[in-house]
């Protein structure tokens, strides 16, 4: 039961992050269409998207955390 709840929580987090990335990509596209000088806003959005992937999908924080036994 606990395993199932963890699995459901992990799956939900993945889809939430994907939704956020999709929204940011749409914002990126709109910024490109509407804003003339868009280098800085596009860079900021790209950094936010990359950070979300590194944090939630790549688990970068695990580098500083003691790993679980196994693997």
């Amino acid at each position, binding site marked *: 039961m606990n395993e199932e709840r963890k*699995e459901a929580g992990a799956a939900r987090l993945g889809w939430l992050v994907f939704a956020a990335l999709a929204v940011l990509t749409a914002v990126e596209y709109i910024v490109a269409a509407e804003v003339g000088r868009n280098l800085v806003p596009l860079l900021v959005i790209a950094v936010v998207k990359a950070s979300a992937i590194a944090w939630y999908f790549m688990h970068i924080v695990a*580098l500083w955390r003691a790993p679980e036994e196994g693997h």
Partner: protein
Amino acid sequence: MVATPLGEPLHAAWHLSPARRLRINQAGLWLFFFSESFLFGALLAARFYLAGTERPAHLNQLLGLSITSILLASSVTAYQSEAAIKQGYIGRSLAFLAATIALGLVFVAGVGVEWTTAEFGIGEPYGTAFFAMTGLHASHVVSGIVILGLVYRLCARGRFSKERSWGVEAAIKYWHFVDVVWVFFYPALYLVSW
């Protein structure tokens, strides 16, 4: 004295606990990503050095947005595959791995379409940057597909489990890294203007 990245003498590395070995594996993989980021960073800088912030008027924006969305979607299926195997759901992990591979193939096909229909030449400054960046990135996507394919095969043969999932995790982290690179390449090639 020769030492491991964590400071132990080299001979001690043979007697490391699984947790310690995993930590070394993780550090090695992230160092690899760090070194790769210099390669992609140099290409990104070359794009602005060669062509400034200019881009051709008839870029296929719809195709660019589509392949970007596909790669982002492949990252979430890769994540779901990793989450599933860490909970011991091998079948679900395999299904999401297969979906990731399929989305990766669609991305590569999209890049192929872009290459064959591009209205700029490789000799132009923007074209040089475009083909170099998308080419190198696509080669990483292809190698990612091959790695995920190998992991799929091993996983299907029972090589990985809830307790032994590092191989799957490492391949999927590599896939996410390739996605992160595209997060910077997409606006630099398709969207930026100054």
